[in-house]
């Protein structure tokens, strides 16, 4: 750590950094920032920077009004979009109370605590997300809903090339930030994109997701378009998921790999998947935290509505991909429920906790789903024992409220806050009279 701090202070000097932004995340997953002058950085390392938490979601109660942000020097990066005029850097922060204990409401601390628990069991947790999002002409929308930048299929075919520039620019910036990516343009939705982040430990990945969202938004602004991670912005087109590949390592060994296992998945891997499935309904309020999230889950097509697993089954909630021979280190499982608007720190904490619970209690993996689950009839699904994920945020919150796993993992205060906050969202949503109701009811009633 100390070497890292050394490096940060040196770099600030050498590169003439003018501002340092301290980033942290609120309980909802929104990135917050405080900008400080380089002269203050040393003090922030030593003692933390006092911030007023009372205006931050999840920190709102009086007793967390006074918190300290401690920048994590390993996350130091110069922000590329600021250019060479007034170079600006950023670091992620851990939030503590004035007496030096991790602030209960800091999602990054929640993930750190969960990772530490996994480490106690001898595991390191790696993740690799595939983040989908839409590029829109603007955040304004008319009666037809938002307008994608292209109504055609491929990006490159769009004349004028703003989208092409977008891609080049975003990749460049992400790579400048040390995040290597793979871009792909979906045929599925107009203006929809997917970016895969490289495999990394879950804390780094979560930090990277937060950075990534910021970069994508910044570049979009630069290019005069609007990027959104909303789970389901367009009624007629697929939603934006954040399928995440996960694996556990014991030291240098991939604990999911067993050359003799079914799909080369080890016993630990099977139990991990069983844990994910067993607890999936109760963690959904966090992995899919908005009212809108449930419109993606239940939109059919490839959305994972049912608690199933399969091998190369694109309708399953958990997929066990086949690895190339001799690539045991890349053994992994893919959780397809997560959407792009989740708070990555909390979502990864819960996925890990659910999987670990499966290992700890030796859960049995149910039989594999070989059919396209969507194509089955309701009775067939019942007969096969395929349970649905919660149908709405309200249902998801009810399941979460009874979950010891979620309470234990998030800590009492974040747990409580998420419930309160999301209940409010549900109430506000329910209070509306929607165009749907008006158009289908008004004339006949």
């Amino acid at each position, binding site marked *: 750590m100390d070497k890292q*701090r050394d490096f940060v202070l040196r770099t600030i000097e050498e590169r003439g950094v003018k501002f340092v932004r301290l980033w942290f995340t609120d309980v909802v997953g929104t990135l917050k920032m405080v900008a400080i002058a380089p002269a203050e950085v040393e003090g922030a390392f030593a003692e933390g920077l006092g911030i007023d938490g009372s205006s931050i979601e999840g920190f709102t*109660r009086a007793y967390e009004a006074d918190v300290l942000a401690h920048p994590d020097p390993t996350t130091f990066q110069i922000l590329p979009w600021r250019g060479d005029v007034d170079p600006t850097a950023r670091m992620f922060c851990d939030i503590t109370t004035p007496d030096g204990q991790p602030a209960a409401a800091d999602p990054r601390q929640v993930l750190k605590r969960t990772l530490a628990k996994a480490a106690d069991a001898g595991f390191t947790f790696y993740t690799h997300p595939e983040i989908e999002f839409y590029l829109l002409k603007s955040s304004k929308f008319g009666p037809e809903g938002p307008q994608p930048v292209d109504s055609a299929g491929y990006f490159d075919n769009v004349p004028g090339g703003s989208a092409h520039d977008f891609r080049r620019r975003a990749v460049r910036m992400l790579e400048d930030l040390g995040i290597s990516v793979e871009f792909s343009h979906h045929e599925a939705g107009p203006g929809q994109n997917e970016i895969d982040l490289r495999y990394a430990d879950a804390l780094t990945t979560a930090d990277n997701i937060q950075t990534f969202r910021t970069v994508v938004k910044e570049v979009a602004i630069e290019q005069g378009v609007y990027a959104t991670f909303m789970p389901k912005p367009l009624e007629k087109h697929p939603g934006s998921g954040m399928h995440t590949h996960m694996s556990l390592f014991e030291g240098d060994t991939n604990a999911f790999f067993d050359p003799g296992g079914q799909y080369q998945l080890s016993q630990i891997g099977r139990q991990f998947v069983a844990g994910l499935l067993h607890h999936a309904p109760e963690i959904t309020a966090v992995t899919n935290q908005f009212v809108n999230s449930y419109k993606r889950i239940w939109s059919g097509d490839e959305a994972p509505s049912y608690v199933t697993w399969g091998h190369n089954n694109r309708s399953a909630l958990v997929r066990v991909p086949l690895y190339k021979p001799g690539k045991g280190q890349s053994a992994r499982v893919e959780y397809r429920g997560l959407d792009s608007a989740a708070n990555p720190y909390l979502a990864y904490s819960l996925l890990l906790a659910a999987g670990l619970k499966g290992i700890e209690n030796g859960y049995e993996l149910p039989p594999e789903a070989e059919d396209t689950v969507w194509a089955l009839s309701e009775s067939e699904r019942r007969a096969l024992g395929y349970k649905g994920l919660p149908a709405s945020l309200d249902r998801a919150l009810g399941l979460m409220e009874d979950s010891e796993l979620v309470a234990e993992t998030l800590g009492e205060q974040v747990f409580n806050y998420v419930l309160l906050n999301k209940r409010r969202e549900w109430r506000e949503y329910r209070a509306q009279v929607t165009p749907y109701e008006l158009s289908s009811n008004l004339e006949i009633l």
Partner: protein
Amino acid sequence: MNSRPASTLTLLARLGFDDLGAAKSTIDALDATPGAGGITEHLDLFSLAADPDRALRGLQSLLDRHADALAPALEDPSWMRRIIRVLGASEGLGQFLLRRPDELAALREQLGEPRDTEVYRRDIVEAVAGLTGEDARLALRVRYRRHLLQLAAWDLDHDDPLTAMPAVGCALADLAGASLDAGLDIARRECGFPDAQVAATRLAIIGMGKCGARELNYLSDVDVIYAVEAGDGIETGRAVEIGTRLASMTARSIQEPGIEPPLWEVDANLRPEGKDGALVRSLDSHRAYYERWAKNWEFQALLKARPIAGDPEVGEGFLAITQPLVWESSQRDGFVEQVQGMRERVTAHIPADEVDVQVKLGPGGLRDIEFTVQLLQLVHGNHDDRVRQRDSLGALAALAECGYIGRAEAAEFSGDYRLLRVIEHRLQLDRLSRTHLMPRDADRQRVIARATGLASSAEELLSQWQRTKLAVRSLHEKLFYRPLLSAVAKLPDEQLALTSDQAEARLAAIGFVDPERALQHIAALTGGVSRRAAIQRTLLPVILQWLADGADPDHGLLSFRRLSDALGETYWFLRMLRDSSGAAQRLSTVLAASHFVGALFERIPEGAAWLEDDDELRPRPLAALLDEVRATVARHTGDDDAAAKALRVARRRETLRVALAAMVDVIDVQQLGVALSDVTTAYLTGALALAHTYGDGVEFAIIAMGRYGGAELGFGSDADVIYVFRDAGAGDRAATVAQRIVTRLGQLTEDLRLPCELDAGLRPEGRNGPIVRSLDSYRAYYERWSLTWEAQALLRARPAAGDGALSADFMDVADAVRYPSTFGEAEAREVRRIKARVESERLPQAADPARHLKLGRGSLSDVEWFVQLLQLRHAHEEPALRTPSTLGALAAAADAGLLPSRDAERLRAAWLIASRVRSAAMLWTGRTADVLPADRRQLDAIARLLAYPPKSAALLEEDYLRTTRLARQVFEKGFYAT
């Protein structure tokens, strides 16, 4: 030539042999062996051996295998004496001699004193001159051990091992430095870089820890830090690269396995950034690190730094950079926490089964002395460079010399330190192993005892050691706390006097927030010629130490001063301070933990006496309290104000007793509830006796309700009551008389110091109803109008004070209401509805439901309502449910199978934690608290009262929130769901 008497068993026993038979047959056999006469001829030399049997066996083995090497020694009694000394005390050195019999020659000459640093250095470096590889390592290690052999012989043969000990520590450190130099010499030849560049790499090895302080053990890790500078012709980066190779190769020569076993571990983990940091740094890099990043403990470690090998100029350069920084560390933020951390490290991490055999750690161990000495150095060395000594003995002497500690104490603890070190040396010498544990085996203890030269039997050594341990345990108090007094009072028995700045620095270091004020209190407590001042001069040092362990040392000291002023020369107080350290410790602990108790002590200073005796702390039974009340009332007949005052005093006194009992764990929270309820009952009984004149034509009674009725009061709870009367001749005036009694009760029970709120809000019609009713009126009301909530309130009704017959009749009325034969779904729904309304209305605006102790999610009121609904529905057929106690009814309900025992357990846990937090909050602040505090300091103080370790604010918060959440789940399912 056999001139000695026959080796009888008696003689062998006198010499100290243990296995006499085996020794005799060995000796007899040797007698018959040509050339072995030298062994048996001087049998009396064996009396000098720590373990004569082992010495004899060792000699026999040498004779068997290396007779030629041994032969010359056999002719020389002085030489033999040293061989026998070494063989008897050290298995490890015995094996060395078997491996390297030529080294026997090293014992030929008597060492006058351990050799000089440079002599050792030259000799060991010379031994490896020109050598590389296994040859070099072998030469290095054998030469090191030759000197170790000589040193051990000198040490063991010394008349006064306590005097010899410092010289041994120096010599061992010098030998370590010399070996590192030799290792470095080998590394320079082997490292594979161009010679010119190697020559230009100026590597210094800095000794840390005991090696740096020149007080090394026979066998311990040698802590080092490496620094490098580039000489002519190479760049710094290259010097660091070469230096890193040299450093790791140097360590290998010392510690890697080889033909001759390794010497010790070279430990470089104290370097900047620890294990993850670069092994070797340039001076600039060290400077940058220590100026910007190093933590306080790293400066404490640098206290001992000393160049021990390699380039001396670079080593001095390192010191020039680091030493000024060391002494600023007590000025840094967080110093107090660091000191507490140091103390925790001193006391923690000792396996329980080792505590009594640990020479180094544990109470009264070496670490205690080192901690105290270092702390004093850090506090005072900042302003006074004379105390900046590396070694513990030097520091003790300097601290005494400069007047920071008493000379007598310094001399005493210097002796203790040496004794412990000599024991430790002998333990390590035995097997040449890194141990600090006294063997449990009596035979081995005897060997260690004989090896020290301080005792001839195990018992003798152990009792010396015990005495020393006891003395060392009081060391911290004597050296750190006691001199604080000298800043403000002249101590007759001592010369030293701290300045007030020095004393304040010490007080701040242990957690006093306002050291200046604290010093004033100390001055007041110890000034003057009174007996009390004299006794407090003796005891205050340790009291300060106890206060400093509490949540609020400043307030604790203030309260102590007030108490002491109030008690003055009271005989028992002085005796308690003087004789009973248990009571004095309890007193200090409660004063630093509770403002509530501090305030009560101002009124009832004599309560301090109870701390001596758990029986005094135990709450007095109700009957005794009532006896006292009656006597009080009788004594003050005709003067109600005087009587009321006496009753108030008694109530405060008994409340204090209960508070103390709760804090020192004589009673638990349930017993606390009963005790406080009894105190209230006695108080009300007395007040009623004054308010209600005998023969005024009415009967009158007070019925306890709510938590008071359930005998579950906490500190700061209101007492819920209802009043009832019955006409006994007053006729129409009866109601007026009763009304007057109630008014008078209110006046008589007013107490601004310790408020006693009588809350009659649970009466029929609540605050809208008449404050007192006749029994008939109650009966009529309940029969006609009774609302469900009133029946529910009656569940906890219990006679408290007043006419017994009337109370009993009232309870009959109550029973019919509260244990109804039918309690239908409509009534149950009504209870639920009211509860739901209470939840939304009574909780104060902006209060966080999760943290409200009474009305919050899963806290007291949830549990109580849950239990009461069960009682209303089932008490009629389940008599065990008929109890005013919430926990009692809950247990009965679980027994009756009305709820799963796991649910009952969750509710109980929530009720207990909420009750305990409420009482603890009151004890801590002296004010009632309805919410779990948010402030970390408050939480920490409350957590301590709940027996959490210090710094458990977050833990308590999490426990509270989890426990109440789980209770709320039970509540939601069992109460609201039908």
